[in-house]
């Protein structure tokens, strides 16, 4: 067949897609500025409101040319398009004049001056004044200065609808809308309120898309004062948003989201866009410090290095290498994590290296390795567009992974089936077709029920099971034997609901599963992950577009830290340390023998410290005194150490406990790579120099390695990345250069090609292993439920990030200033408790005071709160129950009682 073509100004060009509009076609061949437009933004559907892109088109059957808006007219093969002519010029001038009649012509004092699309377009069209005398206009509209981040000055609005469309089509919060009609139409927030009083969640997409400065932010995103723009990757969650950082002479001015990003075109959340103020906060640690006579005193780097080296060497000498342990950080780069594990293994000689993945997705890694062979997301987020059914288990992506959450919401709006398994009625649950509101701690029960119905009703994909899986017979027998009545009763999920949800997941053409910490942070975390993998396998939802098991990784580089070997049992690339062949392999690369001990996980490190066997602990970027369970115990453990090194940005409670404090660098102050939740290795670029005398974490680790006599090359992130590609098999084809702007998803082959979908032909372990796991009640409830009848489950809020050391040093505190406890109205009524009241919650460990919010999003008997604020310190309450496979603590089920505060 002949390739379809059409004529632009009499020259033929190829039509590349049948869904192309005239504007797409023109821009494809002549670039974005081929015809002027103001209402079209790169990530939005065309809406045809500004009419500036009007061109003349003559289809084969037409007698004459017609004037049409290029953006919403499909291109017809063999049509003729005229982009420029005297009448088009007159028309565009007329439209531009009309726009300018109602726009204040005070460019010179406007923050968007020089970055204003209206200004640029007016200049392009060649108009600088309007003929109409002043009359009715909207220049008197007041500015909105109410919000900590968002700003509006609607006098500058040109009614292009982009902000409204972006709020609908990208964020999906429908905050912005148009009120009034005709010339009185104006953009409003919620029911015509200020930004502060509206439902706005400050993602800032409207500010970024606004062609003028009608909607902006406190950082004046468009102001032309930037001397440089640096592309980097966000430091918060595992979505891995690309950021475009504007830098001025005094540091970071503002942050935007690049339009060309694959992860987050033109979009990011309020943390990524606005919560960067921590980087030069007055609390930043600027010098290394050594504790002398009970107080931390600033010292020079040389002194601190010598101190550490002497101490570590002495401890190693006296107690052996296994008396030393390290906790690396998922907030750091791959290069830094690689070096830290290398330091522990090659320099100290112990496998006592672990990271915060222990507290979040260790069960995912283990569960998926057991079933699939690879502990990482099987598919890519973009495939949401291709899926038919989305299953969200124990995850609250609209709060914790906002950009992915927004993408899931958009698919739900488009009518894709959404199944949510969550003890709380989250925003996602409200949008769901099926919400299985289970009792916390019963994921395994619900998953078993679903699989029971799938197998019993023959909804399973027998072909996939036969070709790709093993262990089905035994698995089937066990699943068919479960007592669904018991499971339904214990989980609180009706059988019919579980069956309907199972049916739609099994029978949709492509079903995609996402899970979060609501799956993993349980006594049966690994079991639940295994079952999620089973569910995907028995329904054939693996190895093709729009399916798979996709953990929503918590931290920016939690995937990467695990990839780099930050766990005791596996080195870089997940090679098992117990294997002598593997140890030889690492020895070849490190030039020294590597240890064969089992190594300690974080909870074990604390236990060992408490027992006096662990003497030295080096913690990078982790505030264990807020994030570990049972904080009193953690505190005692840390106090028992001979040497506690804390490498931090801020003087956290943990840092204040340390003997030595090392000032690390924030993500804006260093280069390297982060790996997001979809295995995408992306470049992080230094924006500013580290504050004070702080150094990048990679530099500090390298310095100490050298100080301790190890022959480590001087720190250069590119050289370390090159070393990693030699060691980690699935990094083989990566180079700093070929990562480009959008990174690569591992495994990356030697030719540089990357992998969007895992397990397309076979699993890493050959066939997928179906593993049955029966439901077990949490030991926490078995032991304490009688005395503490409520189940407290913890979660995250959009406005803060984990323990809040960073976000609480930004304006985000104005949006959320304390942890709030959610309680069902019936429970509150029984205890005569009121909304906003301060109450005491008590667990078997400790008690704390917290403010109450009466909310139907939790069932009776269930309480829910965030753990962001040290004032409440909710992890005082959490216990010692761990998932036995991964040692991930059970943060999600805490037996508590609730009393009025007196």
């Amino acid at each position, binding site marked *: 067949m002949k390739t379809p073509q059409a004529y632009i100004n009499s020259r033929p060009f190829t039509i590349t897609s049948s869904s192309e509009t005239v504007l797409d076609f023109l821009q494809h061949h002549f670039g974005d500025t081929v015809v002027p437009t103001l209402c079209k933004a790169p990530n939005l559907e065309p809406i045809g*409101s*500004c*009419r500036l892109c009007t061109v003349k088109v003559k289809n084969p059957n037409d007698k004459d040319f*017609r004037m049409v808006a290029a953006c919403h007219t499909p291109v017809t093969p063999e049509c003729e398009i005229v982009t420029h002519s005297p009448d088009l010029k007159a028309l565009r001038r*007329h*439209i531009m004049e009309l*726009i300018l009649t109602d726009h204040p012509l005070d460019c010179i004092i406007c923050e968007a001056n020089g970055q204003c699309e209206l200004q640029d377009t007016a200049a392009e069209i060649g108009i600088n004044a309007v*003929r109409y005398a002043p009359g009715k206009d909207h220049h008197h509209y007041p500015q909105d200065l109410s919000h900590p981040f968002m700003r509006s000055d609607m006098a500058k609005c040109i009614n292009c609808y982009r902000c409204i469309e972006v709020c609908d089509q990208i964020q999906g919060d429908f905050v912005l809308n148009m009120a009034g*009609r005709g*010339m009185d139409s104006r953009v409003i927030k919620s029911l015509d309120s200020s930004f502060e009083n509206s439902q706005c969640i400050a993602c800032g997409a409207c500010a970024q898309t606004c062609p003028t400065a009608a909607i902006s932010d406190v950082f004046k995103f468009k102001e032309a004062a930037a001397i440089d723009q640096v592309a980097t990757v966000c430091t918060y969650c595992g979505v891995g948003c690309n950021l475009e950082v504007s830098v001025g002479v005094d540091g970071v001015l503002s942050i935007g989201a690049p339009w060309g990003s694959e992860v987050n075109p033109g979009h990011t959340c309020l943390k990524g866009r606005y919560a960067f103020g921590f980087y030069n906060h007055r609390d930043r640690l600027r010098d290394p410090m050594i504790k002398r006579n009970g107080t931390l005193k600033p010292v020079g780097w040389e002194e601190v290095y010598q101190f550490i080296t002497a101490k570590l060497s002495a401890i190693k000498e006296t107690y052996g290498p296994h008396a030393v342990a390290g906790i690396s950080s998922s907030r750091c780069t791959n290069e830094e994590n690689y070096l830290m594990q290398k330091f522990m293994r090659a320099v100290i000689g112990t496998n006592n290296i672990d990271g915060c993945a222990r507290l979040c997705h260790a069960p995912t890694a283990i569960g998926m390795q057991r079933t699939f062979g690879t502990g990482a997301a099987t598919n890519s987020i973009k495939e949401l567009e291709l899926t038919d059914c989305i299953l969200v288990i124990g995850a609250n992506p609209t709060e914790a992974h906002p950009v992915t959450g927004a993408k899931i919401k958009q698919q739900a709006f488009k009518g894709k089936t959404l199944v949510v398994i969550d003890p709380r009625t989250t925003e996602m649950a409200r949008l769901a077709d099926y919400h299985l509101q289970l009792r916390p701690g019963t994921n395994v029960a619900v998953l078993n029920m679903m699989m029971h119905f799938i197998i019993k009703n023959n909804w399973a994909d027998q072909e996939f099971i036969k070709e790709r899986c093993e262990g089905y017979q035994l698995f089937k027998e066990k699943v068919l034997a479960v007592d669904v009545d018991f499971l339904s009763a214990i989980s609180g999920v009706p059988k019919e609901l579980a069956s309907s949800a199972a049916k739609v997941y099994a029978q949709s053409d492509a079903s995609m599963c996402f899970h979060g910490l609501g799956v993993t942070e349980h006594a049966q975390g690994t079991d639940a992950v295994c079952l999620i993998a089973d569910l995907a396998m028995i329904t054939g939802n693996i190895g093709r577009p729009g399916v798979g098991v996709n953990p929503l990784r918590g931290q920016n580089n939690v995937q990467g830290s695990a990839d780099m070997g930050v766990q005791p049992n596996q080195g870089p690339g997940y090679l098992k340390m117990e294997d002598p062949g593997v140890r030889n392999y690492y020895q070849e690369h490190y030039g020294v023998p590597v240890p064969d001990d089992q190594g300690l996980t974080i909870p074990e490190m604390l236990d060992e410290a408490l027992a006096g066997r662990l003497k030295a602990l080096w913690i990078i970027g982790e505030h264990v005194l807020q994030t570990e369970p049972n904080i009193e115990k953690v505190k005692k453990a840390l106090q028992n150490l001979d040497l506690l090194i804390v490498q931090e940005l801020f003087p956290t409670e943990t840092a204040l406990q340390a003997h030595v404090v090392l000032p690390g660098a924030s993500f804006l102050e260093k280069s390297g790579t982060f790996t997001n939740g979809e295995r995408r290795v992306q470049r992080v670029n230094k924006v500013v120099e580290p504050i004070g005398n702080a150094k990048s974490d990679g530099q500090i680790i390298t310095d100490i390695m050298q100080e301790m006599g190890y022959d480590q090359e001087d720190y250069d992130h590119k050289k370390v990345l090159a070393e990693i590609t030699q060691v980690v098999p699935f990094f083989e084809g990566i180079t700093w250069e070929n990562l480009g702007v959008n990174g690569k998803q591992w495994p990356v082959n030697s030719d540089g090609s990357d992998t969007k979908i895992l397990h397309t032909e076979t699993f890493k372990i050959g066939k997928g292993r179906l593993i049955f796991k029966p439901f077990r009640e949490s030991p926490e409830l078995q032991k304490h439920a009688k005395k503490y009848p409520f189940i407290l489950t913890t979660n995250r809020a959009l406005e803060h990030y984990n323990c809040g050391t960073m976000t609480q040093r930004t304006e985000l505190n104005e949006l959320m200033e304390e942890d709030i406890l959610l309680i069902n109205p019936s429970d509150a009524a029984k205890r005569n408790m009121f909304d906003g009241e301060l109450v005491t919650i008590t667990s078997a460990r400790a008690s704390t005071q917290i403010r109450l919010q009466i909310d139907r999003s939790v069932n009776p008997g269930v309480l829910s709160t965030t753990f962001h604020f040290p004032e409440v310190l909710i992890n005082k309450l959490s216990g010692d129950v761990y998932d036995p496979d991964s040692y991930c603590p059970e943060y999600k089920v805490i037996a508590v009682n609730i009393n009025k505060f007196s």
Partner: protein
Amino acid sequence: MIRSDGQPVSLFEYQQQGGYSALEKALQSSPSDITELVKDAQLQGRGGAGFLTGVKWGFVPMGEQAPTTKYLIVNADEMEPGTFKDRLLLEGNPHQMLEGIIISAYAIQAPKSYIFLRWAYKSSANRLLTAIQEATDAGYIGKDILNSGFDLEIALHTSVGRYMCGEETGLLSALEGGRAIPRAKPPFPQISGLFGKPSIVNNVETLCCVPHIVEKGAEWFKGLSIGDGGGTKLYGASGKVNTPGIYELPLGTPLREILEEHAGGMKNGYRFRAALPGGASTDFLTEEHMDVKMDFKSVSACGSRLGTGTIIVMDNHTCPVGFVHNLEHFFAQESCGWCTPCREGLPWVERILKSIELGEGQDGDLDVLREHTSGLGPGMTFCALAPGAMAPLKSALNYFEDDFQSHIREKKCPFREN
């Protein structure tokens, strides 16, 4: 059939006159036969565009593969200035339209129908609700209508009152609960309309023709017309004529006959100067066009449109500038604000016209107005509102330029006392 006392025709009366027998007949034919029949009858949409109704229905996906959810939507949002023909049908004989709806819904196999009614038509709403209840009780609406296996629900939706709601896609947006904002075509509503499902939007008068076509056949219907297209047409006449009102006449009845015979000619002391043939959004016709046949094709040939066929007469004592200013005031107010030319252009047009009318016009004002008539013309705006608004202005500038000039020259309106 309309009662002379202003009361609605009851179900009993309607049945006595053969009402709902067309429905029985239709349900015995196949849906595609009905569509073909309406096509053959050359029924043209009576809302103003004059598109062939049967052809429009023909675009709806049919058969096994077609979506099961489809909608037949009645555009009863009669807000065109000077137009009151649908009101007569709605208030006078609601069952006639209901029968038309049921047959038409059957033709496109739509299980749900919405009547989108102008908010001000309060008595229409009451009468429709009564009629829907009567027809439901009689088994004409609901499950398994007359044992045919065809189900239909009819719901009345009362608009909040916006001219934009009369625009097909604006109506759909409003019916979905959003702002009455037009949508880009393609996709056409017949493929992706209300809630993204295939939808047909038909005018009240159009649907009222359908039972008669089914009852008496396509040839009979075509034979009623003396112009292009089939059937009769409700013509309206307003202005300084002796007997303003609605007249059902063969499609293609000449303008002169309507105004002079049926509307009784001009009142004493008034001379005919011009007329808008089909509502405010059509171009003026003048004395020279008096013999034009009032059908879609013939009126278009004179540079105007038949529109709704409700004629607004402008007499020799009415100022054309003031007349047009009044219309543009309406259009500027009713613009939805979606696209630039309409949102910003119409208020400026209105302002200029107002200043001319007040004697504050300036040289060059007419050039600016003419620039708008092309800049806001067909194809330049998102929907047809602004081009419709430009129709009376453009033709007024053409036929009555002298009046505009004299306003500017004399710095006053010559039609006013001082």
